[in-house]
């Protein structure tokens, strides 16, 4: 595992070190991976992180906890609302605030839309990694509809700051509901097209099947969660395992794979979009009337001393906020457990002995969002 570029080049002349990133097309951001290659086989990998670290955890220790909300969106720009959700829930749990039911419904609907949006982007970007240029345009076409819907209610398109402690900042209206229903119909009608163009494609299947296999035990050792874990056959989804918000009310399946290879996680993500659509449909049907803000949210939100944890299912796996409070309104310590961080750490083991092309497809299957790793 330990790997020093210079020592390597001196020692093993027949191997050579390829520097992938930080500006490589398939590292999706400022991630750098040092590859030790023998021919085209990667014998060793060393990810180098920290190019985009923004010290969110340090920032959190210097301002009132509820002012940290916009920062959560910047950690994972694709799952901003889900990050909002986790953080709002953490503070509500800590301060003992009851959230109105309508708020929970709105949160679930928007979070699930956000999840589909994230999966659509991954879908396109992953195929771009695999050399297909067209699907990303189709998935962006669909994704644009979600962004329009969400923009109409949250006011922004990517780094949403929509949830508040105890509520949401703006109520949804009839236009949102009809727009979302229309979108559900549209996306459902698009799935067969994706199946034809991409999922059934023999080249894609050859590229993904048996590549980057994981086992549940490996996942436990590395703390891998999310679609990668579900691809190995473990139906572990925070929405089911520790039902937060109102997820226990909805009927949805947790798609799982069997082999744990790239194809399994690929299909898990693809089917998750359908399941998210189901959740949204049910939530829209059951949307209650009511207030969008909890009755008593103190202006200065003091958090009783102690430690609190809030875990939600982000598009890439389990997201946990761990807050240590000393009784003031400023967190004493806030740690964000981001899924991509743990997921990426498996790369050296997962990709050992793989072809360079497979390293690219395995890395794409992790669905990396680098700001989430360099938080």
């Amino acid at each position, binding site marked *: 595992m330990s790997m020093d570029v210079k020592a390597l080049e001196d020692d093993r002349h027949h191997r050579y070190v390829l520097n992938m990133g930080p500006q490589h097309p398939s590292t999706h951001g400022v991630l750098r991976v040092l590859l030790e290659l023998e021919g085209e086989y990667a014998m060793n990998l060393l990810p180098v992180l920290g190019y985009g670290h923004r010290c969110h955890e340090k920032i959190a220790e210097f301002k009132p906890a509820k002012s940290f909300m916009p920062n959560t969106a910047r950690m994972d720009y694709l799952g901003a609302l889900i990050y909002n959700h986790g953080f709002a829930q953490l503070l509500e749990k800590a301060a003992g605030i009851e959230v109105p039911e309508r708020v929970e419904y709105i949160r679930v609907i928007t979070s699930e839309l956000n999840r589909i949006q994230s999966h659509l982007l991954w879908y396109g970007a992953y195929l771009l990694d695999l050399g297909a240029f067209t699907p990303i345009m189709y998935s962006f076409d669909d994704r644009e509809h979600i962004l329009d819907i969400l923009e109409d209610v949250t006011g922004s398109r990517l780094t949403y700051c929509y949830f508040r402690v105890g509520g949401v900042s703006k109520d949804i209206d009839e236009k949102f509901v009809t727009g979302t229903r229309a979108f559900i119909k549209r996306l459902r009608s698009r799935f067969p097209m994706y199946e034809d163009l991409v999922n059934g494609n023999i080249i894609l299947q050859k590229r993904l099947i048996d590549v980057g296999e994981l086992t549940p035990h490996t996942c436990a050792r590395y703390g891998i969660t999310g679609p990668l874990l579900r691809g190995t056959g473990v139906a572990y989804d925070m929405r089911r395992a520790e039902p937060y918000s109102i997820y226990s009310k909805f009927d949805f399946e947790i798609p799982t794979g069997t082999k744990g290879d790239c194809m399994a996680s690929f299909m898990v993500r693809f089917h998750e979009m359908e399941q998210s659509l189901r959740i949204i449909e049910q939530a829209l049907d059951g949307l209650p009337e009511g207030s969008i803000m909890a009755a008593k949210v103190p202006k200065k939100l003091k958090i009783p001393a102690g430690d609190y944890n809030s875990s939600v299912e982000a598009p890439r796996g389990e997201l946990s906020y761990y807050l240590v409070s000393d*009784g003031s309104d400023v967190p004493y310590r806030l740690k964000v457990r981001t899924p991509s961080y743990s997921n990426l750490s498996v790369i050296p083991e997962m990709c050992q002995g793989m072809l360079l092309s497979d390293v690219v497809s395995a890395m794409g299957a992790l669905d990396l969002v680098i700001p989430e790793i360099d938080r």
Partner: protein
Amino acid sequence: MDINQVKKQWQKLSTAVEDIEYAVSGHDYNVCLERDKVRDFATLMLNEGFYLVDLMAVHVTPAIEVVYQFAHFETRCRVLARAFVDDKVEMPTISDIYQGANWHERETRDFHGVVFIGHPYLKPLILPEEDVDLKPLLKAEAKLKDVDAVRRKPPEPAPAPKAKPAPKPEVKPAAVKSQEQS
């Protein structure tokens, strides 16, 4: 996984095991460890099928506290394990048991300066190479709190692992008091 059985084994390894209310804190169990038992504890957890959620440090007096979080794939069981570092700010590594801890430990070394003994590659992960001694998340003297100030229950970590119902948020006075003590 039989939780009672596992709990008995935890009790053998730890100084205190307490049940905490999930609805309040988001954890089910709190386990206080001695630092030489951390590796045994991690091995036990891996054998029981827990995965490592997170590994982090909190800077408090008397010493930096390293916090391990575990959860289980099949049943809801969130475990919080804590241990204090020794005078030399050292801690045994668990990165050979839970490989995922590798990066968490490197990050903790970056931010808090905790040295994990036995770690295969304890080089800066997030920080650049030249900032080895920056330790950005260490608290300034004025802001540093005693460990009891950030605990939910009143001070004196009793060895008796009696599960108390999670106290209501009236811990503040206690927190202030312990601050004065320190």
